[in-house]
């Protein structure tokens, strides 16, 4: 018995991004919501790309277009399920000619085609229509199905993806969180360093509920236990339940979705990174929105309350020339340039040690700190900010800072914050210049560290092994291509910092269309 989780009514709304990711016959598949007519949302159809390594992609022809009455107004997101016999079914939301949201079934036209180029829509679509009492525009975004060995109390139950039984009860709800979009539900291992198939459950397993909140456009997750027998999920810590606790990413990252990569036994996360420039600029450049570098997801054994995200190891295949900087002392109030050559495409791994004596001697205070409301990298505290300036020009007229900020409470306890300051990222006036960030748990004995992937206008930063992640979009006008530089800085007042860094220039992935003259 397969279960498909479809939240209905107040629960679920979708956004248009990646869906149906899967690994099949040696290729990773990525489908995405695509507007072939404009660099804005609308006229949505299915884009399709394939890769052997999640890094080098080939564009394939559009997988599905809006050519039936039941998806004439949009071929929206869905989820793929690989059945036991290896066959794939895709359940997706269509917006009908009358803009009613329904669920439709589609499957590959030819399962022996590793590229899954052509798709067939089930002739008797839709398989699910909004049930009585549910608004026509509030019914979408089915998730991947999983097998439940016993009975269930989820929304829909199916044996064949064609006939569904609507059941009472919901997996979970959290009051006051508004609309939930792109719900994801998956198991993680408490003990192993690998991912788990979506159908796995057991004593060493926790389940993650992830929701995208329509109200603030952020993705939240919570860790808990899934009770198969009565089909409920209970959060480990209700005070940080889904939607009110931890975020996948404290920057611009939304509608993320995982899939189980059976090729390498890992759970991989895809996320949509939008633009923070103006639509006028998007129209001029002719495109908008990007996908993040895929990230593996693991349970954080050290804290027990976090997930660890880390760029897939295949990204390392793009590393070119590397530079190492060992034990660079950065005095309070100084900026040190790092000579790495061209700095618009980088992979940076950085470790920081702050003067421990100064930290111990200091008297704490009860001042609260938050990255978002602070003065950014320019606001000096006793023990922060310190970190890196990326996509900076040589006279620092443009700079984006990624940094730590440590506070000491009057009880002597240290709290560490991880921030990304865009306030001086560009001379342009029509771009977002917020400061993103969050508290990051630092365990006893852990050094402060982060990894940054820099890619022209995209910065993905991972602190403490991926425990806290920030993605941002910046649009420098001078710190571009060969003129982009990187600096290490320490703007704290009371302590010096020692930094050790490894910085690689990154090659481009040269994504291209699959040659159409080749037989697919």
């Amino acid at each position, binding site marked *: 018995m397969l279960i498909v989780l479809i939240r209905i009514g107040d629960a679920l*709304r*979708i*956004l248009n991004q990646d869906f149906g990711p899967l690994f099949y016959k040696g290729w990773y598949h990525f489908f995405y919501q695509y507007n072939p007519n*404009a*660099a*804005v*949302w*609308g006229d949505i159809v299915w884009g399709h790309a394939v890769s052997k390594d999640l890094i080098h992609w080939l564009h394939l022809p559009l997988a599905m277009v809006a050519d039936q009455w039941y998806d004439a*107004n*949009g071929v929206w997101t869905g989820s793929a399920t690989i059945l036991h016999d290896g066959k794939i079914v895709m359940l997706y939301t269509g*917006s009908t000619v009358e*803009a009613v*949201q329904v669920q439709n079934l589609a499957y590959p036209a030819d399962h022996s085609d590793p590229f899954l180029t052509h798709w067939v829509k089930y002739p008797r679509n839709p398989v699910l229509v909004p049930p009585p009492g549910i*608004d*026509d*525009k*509030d019914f979408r975004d089915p998730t991947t199905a999983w097998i439940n060995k016993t009975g269930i109390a989820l929304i829909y139950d199916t044996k064949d993806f064609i006939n569904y039984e609507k059941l009472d009860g919901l997996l979970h709800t959290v009051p006051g969180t*508004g*609309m939930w979009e792109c719900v994801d539900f998956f198991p993680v291992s408490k003990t192993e360093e690998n991912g788990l198939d979506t159908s796995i459950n057991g004593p060493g397993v926790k389940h993650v509920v992830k929701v995208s909140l*329509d*109200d603030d*456009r952020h993705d939240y997750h919570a860790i808990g236990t899934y009770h198969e027998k009565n089909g409920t999920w209970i959060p480990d810590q209700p005070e940080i339940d889904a939607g009110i606790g931890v975020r996948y990413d404290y920057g611009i990252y939304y509608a993320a979705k995982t899939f189980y990569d059976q090729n390498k036994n890992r759970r991989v996360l895809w996320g949509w990174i939008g633009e923070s420039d*103006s*639509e*006028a600029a*998007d*129209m*001029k450049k002719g495109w908008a929105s990007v996908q993040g570098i895929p990230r593996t997801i693991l349970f954080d054994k050290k804290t027990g309350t976090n997930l660890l995200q880390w760029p897939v190891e295949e990204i390392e295949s793009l590393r070119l020339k590397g530079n190492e900087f060992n034990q660079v002392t950065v005095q309070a109030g100084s900026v040190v340039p790092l000579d790495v050559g061209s700095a618009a495409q980088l992979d940076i791994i950085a470790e920081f040690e702050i003067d421990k004596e100064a930290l111990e001697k200091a008297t704490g205070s009860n001042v609260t700190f938050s990255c978002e409301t602070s003065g950014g990298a320019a606001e000096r505290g006793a023990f922060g900010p310190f970190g890196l300036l990326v996509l900076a020009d040589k006279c620092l007229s443009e700079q984006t800072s990624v940094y730590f900020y440590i506070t000491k409470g009057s009880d002597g306890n240290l709290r560490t914050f991880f921030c990304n300051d865009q306030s001086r990222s560009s001379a342009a*006036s*029509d771009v977002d210049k917020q400061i993103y960030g969050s508290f990051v748990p630092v365990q006893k004995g852990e050094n402060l560290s982060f990894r940054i992937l820099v890619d022209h206008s995209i910065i993905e930063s991972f602190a403490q092994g991926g425990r806290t992640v920030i993605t941002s979009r910046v649009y420098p006008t001078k710190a571009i291509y060969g003129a982009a530089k990187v600096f290490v800085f320490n703007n704290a007042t009371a302590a010096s910092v020692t930094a050790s860094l490894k910085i690689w220039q990154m090659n481009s992935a040269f994504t291209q269309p699959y040659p159409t003259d080749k037989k697919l």
Partner: protein
Amino acid sequence: MTKIISLVILQAVFSFTFLPISYSASNLIETTCKQTPFFNLCVSTLRSDPGSSTADVAGLAHIAAGSVNSKATATLNQITGLLKIAKDPNLRKALQRCVDSYNTIVKADIPVAIEAILKGNPNFAVDSATDAANEAQVCEKSFANPPKSPISDSNKAMRDLTAVLESIASLLL
């Protein structure tokens, strides 16, 4: 004499019959507009469209989007008119930037907002409204002063109207 009296009575009945209907429609318009930062602007904008008396919140959002479109189109015409006679290079540069901004509003922001409202994906309508406000702001700021902006009133009206649209679209989230 009797005839006149009958007429008066008929009139009164006529008015009372219609009052409850327009009151409840006004009620939705007023409740909705109370949740925007510009109540009076919101009410007058919505009421200028006869369809507003029977519209639900999505319908009111659609009317608001249409209103932003009209104002943007009119402002675009104003700008291109000014561009025809402008000689100062700084003024021309600013006006050209404004053409880009308002073209974006008319060709991208509003069509996306309307599609989003009609298909039940209101967060794109909210985003578009925010972007439209930003475009108007960028246009206004492109006048370095000197030269002074000749379209301050239009840009301000635009920012206010898009704020109304954004608030109404947010109610659909």
